[in-house]
């Protein structure tokens, strides 16, 4: 077998983020650094400023990733549960090739009740350290990132899938962020499609 991290810069990145991210949140985004994303009209927006919500969840997605698509019902379940509690959700599309029109169609097909933003330059991908679709980044009331990683542990590898998840990492992280308490595992490994392929 071949050692994958040697070959895939993206995994090296993941490893680095994990090393520095565990236990403290100093690597997380500085409160002052804005998140620069594009809305579907091409305007630059900072979702944190835009929503003004207590907690903001970014979900990295692509229109053609079967795993992030299979998570659509679960993402919507979380949205329905937390939106009333002042939590904002945004899908973030890092594929520069996916047009606003394709994204609108995707949001509609999967019946998403919230909006999508684009990250064609991977500015927010790099800032958060996200490597996979689907992967979540959760920002707490102070504007710092308190969690980045998987939605749950349903996927063990691409080929090994649990019948039902045994952890609900994203749900737990949002809950903790709302309550202002630290998160046990601020970073987890997401399974899905590799964002670095989208350069």
């Amino acid at each position: 077998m071949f050692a994958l991290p040697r070959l895939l810069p993206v995994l090296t990145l993941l490893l680095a983020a994990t090393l520095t991210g565990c236990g403290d949140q100093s690597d997380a985004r500085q409160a002052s650094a804005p998140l620069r994303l594009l809305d579907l009209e091409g305007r630059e927006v900072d979702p944190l400023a835009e929503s003004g919500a207590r907690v903001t969840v970014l979900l990295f997605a692509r229109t053609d990733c079967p795993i992030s698509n299979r998570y659509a019902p679960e993402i919507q379940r979380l949205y329905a549960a937390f939106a009333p509690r002042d939590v904002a959700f945004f899908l973030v599309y890092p594929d520069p090739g996916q047009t606003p029109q394709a994204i609108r169609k995707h949001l509609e097909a999967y019946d998403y009740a919230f909006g999508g933003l684009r990250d064609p330059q991977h500015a927010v991908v790099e800032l958060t350290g996200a490597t996979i679709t689907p992967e979540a980044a959760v920002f707490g009331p102070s504007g710092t990132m308190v969690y980045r990683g998987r939605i749950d542990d349903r996927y063990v590898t691409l080929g090994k899938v649990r019948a039902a998840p045994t952890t609900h990492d994203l749900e737990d992280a949002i809950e903790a962020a709302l309550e202002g308490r630290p998160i046990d595992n601020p970073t987890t490994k997401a399974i899905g499609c590799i964002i670095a392929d989208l350069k």
Partner: protein
Amino acid sequence: MRNRGPRARLLLAAVAALPVGCDRDGDPDPSPPAAAVSLPSEPLTFTRHIAPIIFENCSSCHRPGEAGPFDLLTYEDVRKRASQIVMVTSDRFMPPWIPVPGYGSLAGERRLTETQIALLEHWVEQGAAEGDPADLPPRPQWPQGWQLGEPDLIVSMPEPFSLAPGDEDVFRNFVIPIPVEERRYVRAMEFRSDNPKVIHHADMRIDRTRGSRERDERDPEPGFEGMDAAGSAQFPDGTLLGWTPGKVASQGPEDLTWRLEKDSDLVLGLHLLPSGKPETVSATIGLFFTDEPPTRYPYSLRLGSMTIDIPAGERDYVIEDSYVLPVDVEVVGIYPHAHYLGHTMRGTATLPDGTTRPLIRIDDWDFNWQDQYWYTEPVFLPKGTTVSMRYSYDNSADNVRNPTHPPRRVIFGGRSSDEMGDLWLQVVPRTARDLEILKADFERKEVNVRIAGLLMKLESDPDDFESHHDLALMYLRLGDAANAVTHFEHAVRIEPGFGGGYYNLGLVRAAQQRHAEAITYFMKALEATPDLADAHNAWGNALIAQGRLDAAAAHYRQALQIDGQFALAHFNLGAIADARGNTDEAIACFRRAATLGPDSARIQSTLGRLLLEQGDVVDALPFLERAVYLRPDAIDDHVRLAQALISNGQADRAVPSLREAVRLAPDSVRLLNDLAWILATHPDDTVRDATQAVTLAERAARMTGRRDASVLDTLAAAYAGAGRFTEAVGTAQSAQQLAPHDPDLAAHLQAYLDGTPYLDASLTRRSD
């Protein structure tokens, strides 16, 4: 354009020639070899190095309208998933193929070589360049629509199924009536869907009962729920039918056709994978017919256990089963099956000389990628071979595929929360007789396995009338009528509207010669199920046993009113006509029966005999030939066939049947004499075998004490054929002394005196 193809092919050839040291045929070592791959020193590009791998191994599924969730056709498609492709190919998640190579040579193996994986890896490492567009090989052309051409019959799911976006896999069985008016022979079947991306796999069975329809009717949604549709639906004639993404339609042996009867339902079991958004899925199956009845019949051997009972937390629960083949077979296909807890699987053949041949090995079973496999070449297993299976199951919490957390006890059953352990082998015996031997022998084994399973099931659900009925049938197969009657009675007591139960009770009583009692059961059967044609037929048979021919005929006619295609009812009416001397009517009935029942030796033989008796030799031949084929041990059929062929001027073709008849009845002078005569005097050199004729005729002469003129005539002809004229003349003279006025004998003697053998021209002439 002229440059592209050849260059690409050249490259593929070069890659294949690299000393990769993997995929060796028959290599029993499953551990991946050290990656001694050597790669081109030039920079790797998509168009030159990667596209051939992708086109050959990925694109057939990863293209529009096919099962792959995204396309892999262009540089852009591949670049956008480049490191992902490296990841899934190096851990061999893709292309999906779970059997370990080297354990049985399976057709359609989807496996990349170590070299191909290394090429992908280094290409990504070097920056995943596109390269010169001129290097791009032509994209493979896939046939549009049906892969096997236009089907003879297309059937579809009655309505599309709506698949909700939930996150649980869905197992749904759809019952699709197949509108054929008469029996057809199916040579191939092709599965297509409008939405293959949500179908993980499909299996197809045929139900000749109403069992699956009833399950469908009990379930308010289209189809019915369940992981294993089996029940009354079966693999037809032992033919494994299934579809998985990437599978080319009908890879099975070409001459293995199966019988599709009128009023059959196709039961299509779909394992569906929700996509995250609402989906609809429908499926269409194309059937390809042939007019030729099958000449070889496969049979499915199912090894495994029906008493699986895995304690919660058990990491290594093992089931084993084996069977000793009573005849030679060729194994053409294999289908391993378990649910989510299955872990390792082994199928092995141990030959009589002790050598072993692996049939299949799976080290990390994945229910999602189950498949029915064909062997690249049939695997010959001689009589006395032990075929065996060993599966292990992991019911611990560490098994991520375990559907239940925390684990609980899991028992045998068809639901996704139950477990199964089957290893199906599709085998082809050499002859119809061997098939019968195998069937009878294997059924005894199968019956005991099923009885154990049904008793376990009835323990938890004593009022399950179907299980009582199934159990009764199993006891019947073991010849245990008392237990069978007990459970049939249980079944009709629990479900009084169950005509089949009364019918079977009637059959048991009829077999015990208790005909009056049998008739009361057939009456009850028809009260419960008025369209049960079989009950009328059996009622007719019971009346025949009582000598009441008119009443019997009335019931056969009633059976035919319900089902005009009922071969046996036609046959029975013919038998009544024959018994009454109404030969023309009998022949007409038998002809109808023979068309509808081409696999009943009794029907074919009876019609052939009657036609032959009427002097209708040419007409009789095909039926006699079919009878001999279906029932090779029936000496009368061989004799009649030989007789018909000889009088039709085809004595050469009579030789095999006469030989077989001599083998079956070595003391028959007449058979020895006829065979020896043909071998001694046939005008065709290639048919004659004077040496053998002498041996046979000498035996016949000894048996008759040299007192039979025609036997001596034959012996003389055999000597002459062998150039032994002195003995020929002496023997012919002895014959002449026994029958002094026979002009033929005189002519034969004269020929031998002249030093020429006698050739019988009448053997190549029709005698009218």
